[in-house]
């Protein structure tokens, strides 16, 4: 499924504080560069040096970095781009400045969209994004979104707009590693297709040193048995604890087991019932049966 994300028009990578998505973002950027596309990166969170570190040198000339990190709010009057300038006209003007081919092959990478959402009204951001990826110049928009920083509705609204959403989460630790590379993260990919079907897939992946993406299979294959074992041990643990507890012994003895119940009850239940009800009555101390009273003789 990772290969299908290449054809996405608006791809949103959402991450949390537990597991960052920037490595995945860089890996996607590198893949775009290798495909000979022009990539415009709008960086709000990391500097140009940090973002481009590790990417292959021969492709770097195709990457244009718009620096909004050094002076995001224009305090020094020296910034080249601020979050408030994220409007369709400004973005398109900036893309038009750098030399590019006429064909529609610009990939826009936003690192991160959270900065833009925190400084602009959500409706404006959504409209801008929609105009960008349905316009003529931009082929694809890849945005990083930190779900911790926004309300659920905001994340939902942006992902509603996206054709593909990749949710990055930390992978649960496995007791035995079959491969030598431990899985870095779990990606849940949701992709909306033309025919209307929505596909959801979960995969483990790692981003290697040279920012290539390695897909490591699906969760269902890897860990099923450990979970079952854990459940059993929990139940067994409770029973063991109950047995060891003195009061527990008394409580369990209070419940009369079926095979220890008095014989008439048991035998009556074992006989085939023929639409009759048997009433077993054992007279207790409060009943006094008077042999001379004619009413007590009634045999009903």
């Amino acid at each position, binding site marked *: 499924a990772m290969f299908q994300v290449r054809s996405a028009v608006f791809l949103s990578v959402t991450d949390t504080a537990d597991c960052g998505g920037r490595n995945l973002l860089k890996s996607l950027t590198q893949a775009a560069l290798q495909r000979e596309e022009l990539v415009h990166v709008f960086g709000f969170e990391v500097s140009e040096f940090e973002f481009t570190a590790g990417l292959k040198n021969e492709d770097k000339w195709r990457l244009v970095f718009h620096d909004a990190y050094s002076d995001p709010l224009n305090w020094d009057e020296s910034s080249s781009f601020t979050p408030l300038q994220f409007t369709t006209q400004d973005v398109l003007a900036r893309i038009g400045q750098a030399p590019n081919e006429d064909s529609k092959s610009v990939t826009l990478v936003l690192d991160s969209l959270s900065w833009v959402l925190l400084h602009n009204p959500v409706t404006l951001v959504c409209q801008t994004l929609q105009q960008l990826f349905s316009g003529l110049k931009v082929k694809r928009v890849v945005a990083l979104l930190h779900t911790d920083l926004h309300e659920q509705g905001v994340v939902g609204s942006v992902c509603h*707009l996206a054709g593909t959403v990749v949710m990055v989460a930390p992978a649960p630790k496995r007791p035995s590693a079959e491969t030598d590379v431990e899985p870095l993260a779990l990606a849940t990919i949701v992709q909306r297709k033309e025919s209307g079907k929505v596909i959801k897939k979960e995969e483990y992946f790692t981003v290697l040193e040279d920012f290539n993406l390695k897909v490591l299979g699906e969760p269902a294959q890897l860990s099923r048995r450990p979970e079952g074992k854990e459940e059993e041990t929990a139940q067994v643990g409770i029973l063991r604890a109950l047995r060891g507890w003195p009061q527990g012994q008394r409580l369990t003895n209070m419940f009369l087991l079926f095979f220890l119940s008095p014989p008439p009850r048991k035998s009556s239940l074992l006989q085939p019932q023929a639409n009759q009800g048997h009433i077993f009555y054992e007279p207790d101390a409060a009943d006094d049966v008077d042999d001379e009273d004619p009413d007590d003789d009634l045999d009903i």
Partner: protein
Amino acid sequence: MAASCCTNMSAVLPSGNVGISSTSFHKKSRSKLASIPGTRPSVQNGQLLVSTGVPSLDYVIGGGLAVGTLLLIEEDQYDGYSHVLFKYFLAEGAVCGHSIFVASAREHPGDILQNLPAPLLDDVVNAETEEEIVNINQSVREHQDSMKIAWRYQNLPKMQTSLASSSRFGHYFDVSKSMSPEMLYSVSCHNFYPGNEVSLDSVPMIGNKNTVYMKLLQSIQRVIRNEGFDGACPQKKQKNILRIGIRSLGSALWGDDICYQDNPEHVHSLTMFLYALRGLLRTSLTVCIITVPAHLIQNKAIMSRIVKLSDTVVGLESFNCSEKRTNPLYKDYHEGLLHVYQIPRLNSLMCDVSEAKDLAFKLKRKLFTIENLYL
């Protein structure tokens, strides 16, 4: 007298009717409205109905969608299947020759109109869907014939899982092929795309009213008045029906903030729009379908107000994206659940509610079926 009745009846049947078992017995209808192609009077209360494009959905909502009412679809999580239903509705309108009005904020309406599913028509009757329906009928008949001992139960109908109305009032579409442009030439289409109408720099809200919604209402009103759907200027040609489709209403692209804020500033803009829209619908020959991303609307009170202001409300929930049900047993046969939240009571005291409450839907290439979910 008899001759005029016959010609009237031939106009009643919608074009493109594929009859497996066409009888010569037709209901005599003397009302003038029934002569609009693609419509039929309801058997329950005589209301004029149009098809939603999906015959099993027609059955679930009581035979079809009444003219002058609003169908609200609560979208599934990523607007996959609800968009399919939206396209079916528009495609049905194109096949029947109705006028179409499409309003969409995300995709340009022109793109939506180019990607409508192609209908399966008479002359190119496709064997597969025909076979499916015939197989269901045949299996029913076979079971009936084979009862020798329990012959008294022979005439009881076998449980039908697929719901379909008996007469071919709706059409079947092939989602993988798109409708040929020639079919759309004769149909008058109107578009509304917020990006064209409202400039980006202007504030979406003026005072209490959402300008995008206001412009949409004005545009709809203009179309209704100019084309004579409300009887203002008497139409010289035959009366026709306007089908309005509005996609993802209430999302952030329409300038509305109910989808991303718990306490939105402009709570009533969408409800005011719906109220005005329903007034327009009731006084004209129009049918409207609206899809709303209900899962994004944080405030439940708003959603319940929206439901009350609509007539028929249907919700889709796909198994793929729902966190609640991940039982693999569900996924084998069906792709999601269909919830019917509200059915209107039009000119009657009670509405026709089907007994089956658990409905599931399945989208195949040529068929969108809604079935009872049996576990």
